[in-house]
């Protein structure tokens, strides 16, 4: 009886460890219905760059702020500043940087790092 219990317990532990490893690590569930605040940073940055591009068309600062608020960031202006500087540091597309810098300028968060891009005419 003791051998039976030991075998069963050992098997359960090994199986449970495998199950959790597979379920959380290798094949995690793909959840739906997530808020935009849970977007991966690359997508949050991409979203911000798209809003900045739209801002070039309509010049609607409050509209841009409202659209960025969807991301659930505490300070939208600071978020724009951080994304812009990240784009500059990573040497992303000049057009995207240009759009972001102009949006940052409109929101009053222009930094020294962005200053050189103000005069750039995007290709």
């Amino acid at each position, binding site marked *: 009886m003791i051998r039976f219990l030991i075998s069963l317990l050992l098997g359960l532990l090994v199986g449970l460890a495998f199950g959790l490893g597979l379920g959380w690590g290798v094949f995690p569930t793909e959840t739906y219905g997530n808020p935009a605040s849970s*977007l991966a940073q690359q997508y949050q940055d991409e979203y911000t760059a798209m809003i900045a591009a739209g801002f070039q068309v309509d010049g609607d600062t409050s509209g841009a702020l409202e659209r960025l608020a969807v991301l659930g960031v505490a300070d939208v202006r600071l978020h724009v500043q951080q994304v812009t500087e990240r784009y500059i540091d990573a040497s992303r597309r000049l057009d995207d940087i240009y759009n972001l810098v102009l949006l940052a300028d409109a929101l009053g968060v222009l930094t020294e790092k962005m200053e050189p891009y103000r005069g750039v005419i995007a290709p």
Partner: protein
Amino acid sequence: MTDPTTTRDDALRAREQARKRADKQKTRRRSRYDRPRQTIIWTVLLFGVAVGLVSGLYYAWIIQPLNEAEVAPWQLRTARDTDDLLPDRDAYIMAILLSHEHEPSLGQTVQRLIDLRLSTDDPIQYVADLACRLVRGGYVDSNSHRNAVRSMMRFYQQQGKSGCADQLILMDGRDVPTPTTIVVPTATLVPPATKTPAPQTSPTPETIIESEPFVAPPAPTGSFNIVVFEPFCNRQNSGVIEVIVRNIVSGEELPGYPVRVTGDGVDSTFFTGMKPERGLGYADYRMAAGGVYNIEMPGLSAPTSREIRALDCLDDVSGAPAIRSYRIVFAGN
């Protein structure tokens, strides 16, 4: 006396038998009772592994799924997940199309839409349907929202698609109906001469307003949605809910349709067309300061999810204090 030969033979025989028994013992298969016992029962172990694996997966996928902090856009909330007029994934679609306005790259835009794993094979038509839903849901209540919807409309119209938003939002900004005063001349006929003098009666009113009697149309039917929900502040028209009901297809204003205002002890139903000088589909309701109201077309529309608050405001032009007013357009057929 025993025979010594017999005794020796017996001893030899006994020894031989003992040797044979020993040989037989060696060649005999060891029984389970002879073998040393193992600590693990492998069949039970495998059974445990199987049960544990299933339990682990169930726990990891169903009971306690990993809280994903970094999801992709296609995993965002949709209209199925929330009552928001613009769920997060639709907001992402809007951002894609706003970006498309700045950099019209059809391939990139369509690819971005495809990456969202939309529930359709036609992402462009999906955009048309989304624009329709936003307009019908009353999303276009500000210039920002209107411009965003127009971005979507321009995109799908350029690709030869259409949606109901085309009938409700004009691309040149004329979609917001402005009240127009219609001067209806009323003919005043000279009364024919009579042989008998008219009897003197009580004093008559100095002026007689002649107007065509209002004839209610047949009982209205259909389904209506709020397509414009626009607060404004005007001292001359302070604290008023202006309602316009119009046909979703033709755009013509519809008289005789009921509009119901509820809230703060108020439950008032009135009809469009009672002020024809403001338009056949026009009706209004004056709010009490500080009141909170809801509006609907009883039996024809759902109550608006947005509260109408009669808050203090400053006149958009003069800056004088007033009570916020609202312009609400119902469209349907």
